[in-house]
Structures are given as structure tokens and as C-alpha cells.
């Protein structure tokens, strides 16, 4: 995957993840053009389109458009399911996620994405594992303040080892 954009029906960008090096100017240009192109599509049209030399896969969930740019040889249908899996992850984490959750907790959206995709490739497809990793981070934060921290770290290490044995 080359990049993923999330934007509202009004064209406001809610999340942007770039997996290729581009200058800020180029990013803004691409975003503008692509948002326009996708927003102009009618509902019944297919989820794929060709744009420049890339394939764009997009899907609308409520008021948010999820838009991924993949290369020529990548599989479009599986990308659609990548989008869906990401939405499921957000949904599980936030509990019935809506656009506002992503606006106010944008950093969490990035963290979740990083656990799921890395460098443009799918990293972990088990929903359980991804969410566990995120929740551990939250746990760490809450318990950071007291000396219980060290025990928690130990506990987490043990949990990893446990999983491996299973």
C-alpha cells in the first residue's frame, strides 16, 4: 500500500498515513485531487478506480471515506477487507466507533493502524492480538505512576512467553 486517507463527506481529512516518501507539498496535492475524485463518485459505482498509475480502493462507512492507494499488482478485494478489518478494530476499541472518536482520539487511531499495518503491509491479522497490544499500552499508562509498573512489565513479558508456548 502506498497511502491511506480517511476523510469526511465534506472533504476534511481525518487521518493520513503515507507509506512512501513524499514532500508535504506533494502530499497536499495528492490529497486534494484524490478527495475530489472519490467524492464525485456515485453510490452504486464500484469500489475501485484507476488514478494516475495507482489503483484506488475506497469504501464509505457512515460519514467517513476510507481510501487506500495500492500498486498495480496488489489485490483489490483483499484491500477492501483490510479497510474493513481496520474499521472493526476501531469499533472494538472505541465501542461503536463514530467519526468523532477518530477526531478526538486521532493519536489512538494512528497507534491502532501501526499495530495492524506496517510499512504498507499487513502485520497482524488476528483482531485479538492487535487489540491486546493496544490495551497493554493503556494499561502501562495507568499503572505507570506507582511502583507496580515493574510488576506489570514482568507480567506482560510472561504473557508473551505464555502465548508462544501455546
Amino acid at each position, binding site marked *: 500500500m502506498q497511502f491511506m486517507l480517511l476523510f469526511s463527506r465534506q472533504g476534511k*481529512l481525518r487521518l493520513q498515513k503515507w*507509506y512512501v*516518501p513524499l514532500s*508535504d507539498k506533494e502530499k*497536499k496535492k495528492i490529497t486534494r485531487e484524490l478527495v475530489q475524485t472519490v467524492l464525485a463518485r456515485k453510490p*452504486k*459505482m*464500484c*469500489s*475501485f478506480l*484507476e488514478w494516475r*498509475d495507482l489503483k484506488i480502493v475506497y469504501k464509505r462507512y457512515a460519514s467517513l471515506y476510507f481510501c487506500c492507494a495500492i500498486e*498495480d*499488482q496488489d*489485490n*483489490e*478485494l*483483499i484491500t*477492501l*477487507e483490510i479497510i*474493513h*478489518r481496520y474499521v472493526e478494530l476501531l469499533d472494538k*476499541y*472505541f465501542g461503536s466507533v463514530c467519526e*468523532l*472518536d477518530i*477526531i*478526538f*482520539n*486521532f*493519536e*489512538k487511531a494512528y*497507534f491502532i493502524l*501501526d499495530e495492524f499495518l*506496517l*510499512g*504498507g*503491509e*499487513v*502485520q*497482524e*491479522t*488476528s*483482531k*485479538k*492480538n492487535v487489540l491486546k*497490544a493496544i490495551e*497493554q*499500552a*493503556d*494499561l*502501562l*499508562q*495507568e499503572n*505507570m505512576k506507582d511502583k507496580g509498573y515493574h510488576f506489570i*512489565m514482568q507480567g506482560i*513479558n510472561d504473557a*508473551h512467553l505464555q*502465548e*508462544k508456548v501455546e
Partner: protein
Amino acid sequence: MPAVSKGDGMRGLAVFISDIRNCKSKEAEIKRINKELANIRSKFKGDKALDGYSKKKYVCKLLFIFLLGHDIDFGHMEAVNLLSSNKYTEKQIGYLFISVLVNSNSELIRLINNAIKNDLASRNPTFMCLALHCIANVGSREMGEAFAADIPRILVAGDSMDSVKQSAALCLLRLYKASPDLVPMGEWTARVVHLLNDQHMGVVTAAVSLITCLCKKNPDDFKTCISLAVSRLSRIVSSASTDLQDYTYYFVPAPWLSVKLLRLLQCYPPPEDAAVKGRLVECLETVLNKAQEPPKSKKVQHSNAKNAILFETISLIIHYDSEPNLLVRACNQLGQFLQHRETNLRYLALESMCTLASSEFSHEAVKTHIDTVINALKTERDVSVRQRAADLLYAMCDRSNAKQIVSEMLRYLETADYAIREEIVLKVAILAEKYAVDYSWYVDTILNLIRIAGDYVSEEVWYRVLQIVTNRDDVQGYAAKTVFEALQAPACHENMVKVGGYILGEFGNLIAGDPRSSPPVQFSLLHSKFHLCSVATRALLLSTYIKFINLFPETKATIQGVLRAGSQLRNADVELQQRAVEYLTLSSVASTDVLATVLEEMPPFPERESSILAKLKRKKGPGAASALDDGRRDASSNDINGGVEPTPSTVSTPSPSADLLGLRAAPPPAAPQAPAGAGNLLVDVSSDGPVAQPGLGPTPEEAFLSELEPPAPESPMALLADPAPAADPGPEDFGSPIPEADELLNKFVCKNNGVLFENQLLQIGVKSEFRQNLGRMYLFYGNKTSVQFQSFTPTVVHPGDLQTHILLAWPSPLAPGLPSWDEMDPGRDPSSALLPESLSAS
């Protein structure tokens, strides 16, 4: 309502975001942002050190502002400070900031790399993952240099956690893509391949992506992955939906991993080992079989996942191109999808079938679906789907269905999107030429193309039709007739006029017998379109007119009248003006034989690579080259060059029809040495300059040429007594030229330099140069004897109305020795120079 973030409530951030959202206008938003930026700036610069939480909050705010689209030029230092915190969320925000706002300050980079190094060495998997994520997100060369050696170690170390291994694999992938030279192959490659056997599916997933990329450049290093991949794949495909637990997605076992494994296998040819191959084929068949089974779930996710695997399987089958049975099955499966309810599937089926069409095993099978595809072309509402259908028609075209497909594509062209018209025109042109059995059909098709989408018919296309008509005698008459009829349409496209003009100019005689298309009728038809056309077309038409004068002498007077008109002879465009003058002069001066030779019918064009195909490839980009490559077909049938490179005309303007002018110079037997076309020199040599003198008819020119003869040198030796066989004129007699004058002079029609006259005693050479309205002519005298010529006086006689400068500079005794023309420098050597200058430029 705003949700308070889980884990840590950065209330300040939430409030700020609310404020921004409540801003009524862009100006208010900017104001609020600036206020916050000032606040943060002062906090960062402040005396008391900020605690971790506040730092995190402010850095997060800065990040938010940046993501809104505003530029941030500070905060990096604070973000880097956060990296060294022990608190996970502070680290997290720090890493997020620096991966989004990449900074090239070397000091900062050093600090960042240090922090990452610490985290990587910390043996804390969560910290290690954070660091790896950061490297993968930034992927800069500096990071690659710092860490490319460490990552493989972490990847294959036995005590690395699974999550760390996953992240390390994809991090390495990112670094490799960015700077492949920093990641040398080593003994770790074998261990990476072994990861395919790992228990943890996530690790396998990440490892497969890494191997897929690495093996493209180093196929041998990773060859062992094939059998491992096949066994993994067949285990997944044959597993029940409950086996893989959390890796089952809507009743489909490990769809992402399956797709990735299939992609990996496409990097290699079919496995050589029979057992492995057998297992793979079985696996592929299972996938194809499953597609026929009723779905386990109604959800679209289930069908998408299942079909994703199916399409990737088909891609693999196409890539191998060696199992006819599988290919045909794949084709049938796609055929079913062509009529599926879901648009996505129809789109993908059309796309996949395009690749299938180029395989010889399945080509026939693909053709059976032609009616469905044509229907899709007509009825699909989504333009991208229609476009895929058009692509597929192009790919599946062969001799048996060419006529049908071309007519369908023409019909599609009438209503097609403007953006894709040019591509369709090129494709139709290529198909029509390739599969034409009957060339009159080809001519009809191209003319139809021009009629329907004239604006998008590029030069390559109509040059091509002209070449083909020129090369094939059998279709010339038909072409002339059809083009004549087409021109009679009230509003015909300019490209039609171009094609028509050329064809009638060359082959109009073939239809001249019919009174409806008699020469005067042809001429007036063309001339009626004349002023509606652009300069290039008008130039082409002028060429046609002179050809008419040759073909149909009865039209000479009319056409000359047109050429003589002020609008032509004094036309603002240089090309048109030049052509008008030259053609007018040519028609008046040249005898019918000369005219016939000069305006002889075009010879057949040489065969060269089709430039239409080249243009189409350029348009589509490198990816589509395979679909267009008709390597399997006879590619050399009648491929003629699209744009014949003629001898360029240096003097005339580079208009498209300049080619034709240059080409016209080619057939005449006396191949011109000078770059300029024959016509130009005629004018230059004749008068005191180029087109400036309209009134200058043939007479002064002839006189000039005839008088450009070697004047009798006044020397004691009766030079002219010797070699000239005919009676020599006396020294004072300049009137009549020597008999060979014509022959000798004729060659200067086509060249600027050369020997004008030579006998045993004397050699006279001419060297002339012309630039715009200035011309310069040098006469060189060479003494072929071994004695000096005493009182050697050349005389040049010229028509009275030319003002000339004559440099009387030559040494009275002409020393022996022939000058060498190439090294002759007029300034140094004895010569007489004539410098005609035009008096008035019109």
C-alpha cells in the same frame, strides 16, 4: 459527543479540539490556532521544566495542528525529549510526532537514532516495537544506515518476541525498499525463509511480505521458500473454518496470508519438483472448487475474502501459463463473474480476463464471452467498468472477430468519455490494420474514426492510412472514391480534408473518369474547404494542387489562378507563401516531363515499426505493455513507419506537412546533396533572394543561369580553343554559352557548391551560400597548368537590374595549383565574389 480518551485523558487536548470544531469560520480557526501556538511556544521556552504529561499534551496539540494542514516549525526537540521518557504513552506520542513531521536536522536525527538504539536494546518488547514502528514509518536513508545491520539480527534471534519479529520483518522490508544497498544478503536469509514455518501466523504473514520483496532481486537466495509456501498454503486452504481460530475471517481461513502466499509464488516459475507441483495444483483446484460451493455466509466480507483468494489464484494460474485445464477453468469462473450482481466482481473479472486473453491456451475460451463483454460495454453505468470492457475487447481481438469488435468499439467511441477517446482511437487503428483482410474495410474504419472523433485522431493514425493506401495498389481507387464521398459531407473534420487532399492528389486520376468526380469537381471540392483549414492543412492542399496540375493539365489555369492570388503569394505564413510561389513557378517553368518526374506518384514506404503502437504504449505506461504486446501474433505484418523522416528542409518552417515537401524531393533521380528541397534552391539561385520578388518570372532566371558560364579568360593562350568541341566564342563574345553549359549548370540546381567548368587548363568552381534575403556566390579559378596565367581577368555578366558587388580581388598572375574546395576560404584566396542583395523584401 466527545469521548474522553481511554487510558489517558488529555483534557487539554480535547478542549482544544472542541474549540477548533466550534470555530465558525476559517479566520476564527486560524486565530485560535495561533493563540495556541503562542501558548505552546512560551511554555516550551519557559523557565520551569515541563513535566512529561504536559510535554506530551503540547506535542500532541502540535501534531493535531499539523494534521489540520498548518505548518509547524518547532516542537521537534521536545518530541525527541519525550522519546527518552520511561513512560510508554509519552514515548508513543514522541515517536508519532517525529514520524509524521520528519525533520532533516542532523543533530535531531542523531538524537532520534540514539533513542531508537536504546529502545531496541532495551529488551522490552513494547519499546522495541515502538522503535521498529518508527523506523518503518520514517524509513529514511539515515535510519537505514544506522539500523539496517541490526534489524536482521533481531528478526532471526531466537529470543525475540513474536510481535517484535513481525515488526522487525516489515521494518526491514521498508528499509530494503528505500535503500536496497544497505541490506546485504547474509546467513540470515535462510533463517528468514524458515520463518514461514513459524507457529505464529502473524509472524508468517510478515515474513511472507518480506520474502516476496527480497526474492525479486535475489531469487536464488530464497528458492527454498517455494516448497514451504506451497505446504503452508495447502494446509490453510484445506483447513476447516474452525481450525485457525482468530485467523479465520468470516469463515474464510487466513485470507490475507493465503493471498500473500499466492503472490509469493508468482515471483517464481512453476515448481520443478513434481511432488510440490502436484500439491500446488491440487491446492489451486481446491480453491476453484470452493468457488462453486454455496457461500457459508451472506456477508459481503465473506465473499470478498473468498473471492480475493480466488482472483489471486487465477493470477497465479495465468502467470504459470502451463496448465491448460486450470486456465480454462479459470476462464469459466471469470465468465460467471462477468454477469455477477456485484459491480466490483464484474470489474475485476473484466480486468483478469484481459491478462487471460493473451495466453494461447485460454484465448479461445475468452472469445466465447464476446457477447457478454459487448453487452457490458453498452450497458454498464460505471465508466471504469466500461473502460475495462473496452480493454478486454482489444485484448481478445483476432482475425475471426475483428470486424465485429472494431464496429462495437466505433459505436462506443461515439459516446465515450473525452479523456479516453484518444486511446480508443489508437486501439481501433491498430486493430483495423492488424486484422484487415480486405483493405477497403481498413480504409473505411479509419475514415469512420476521423468522422466520429476527428479531434482525437493523432498524426500517427492518418499518416498510417496514407502509407498503407500508397503501398497497396488494390485499394487506391477505393480510397480515392471513398474519400471523395466523405469530403462531400457538409461539415467534415479537418483531418478528413488532410487525408482526402493527399489521396486525391496522388490517386485522384483513378476516379477522374467518372463525371461526378472529374478533375474540376475534385478541385473545387477541395478548394471549398480551403479557407476553413489550418495552415498545415492548407500547405498540404497546395501540394495537392500542384499535383493536380500534373495529373490534370486542364485544371492548370484555374489552379494557377488560385496560386497567383495575393492571399497565397503574399500570405503571412512563410510556408504557405513559399509553397505558392514555388509551385506557381514550377508549373510555369517546368516542362511537362520535368513536372511529371518531380510530381511522380509516391513510391511505397519502407517497412518500419508501427509508431501507433509505440504511441499507445507511451500513453498507457509501462504496466500495460504486456497486454498490448502482440508478440504471439505476427507482429511484422505490414508494419510501416508512422512518421517517415524525410530529409529535413532547413529553410522552410517545420510544419507537419513539411515532411511531404521533403519527401517529394526524394523520388527525383538527382538526389539533392544540400539539405534544402529542390524548390528552394530554384528560387534562391534564380533571383536575388527568395520569395521577395513576386514579379520575377522565369526569364531573368534563365538568363542568369545561362550567363553563369565561364567567361573566356583573356590570356595569350587560346584556352577556349582546346577542349570545347564546338566553335568557341571569341573572347569578347559573352552572348552564347558553351554547349555543355546546360549540363554543367543543371547540377547547380541542386547544389550550392561544385566545379562549374573544367578543362585541361582551367577549373572554375562555384561556392554559394544563402541566408534569408542574402546570397553570396564565389567563383574560384584553378590553374591546372604548371605555368602562371598572366593578366587573368574573369568577367561576370549579369542582368542589368541586379545590383551586385564584385570584388576585383585576384592576383593577376594565377599561380598553378588547384585549390581544394573544402578548405577554400573566400576571404583569403583569390576569388571574385558576387554578393547579390535583394532590394526589397516584401
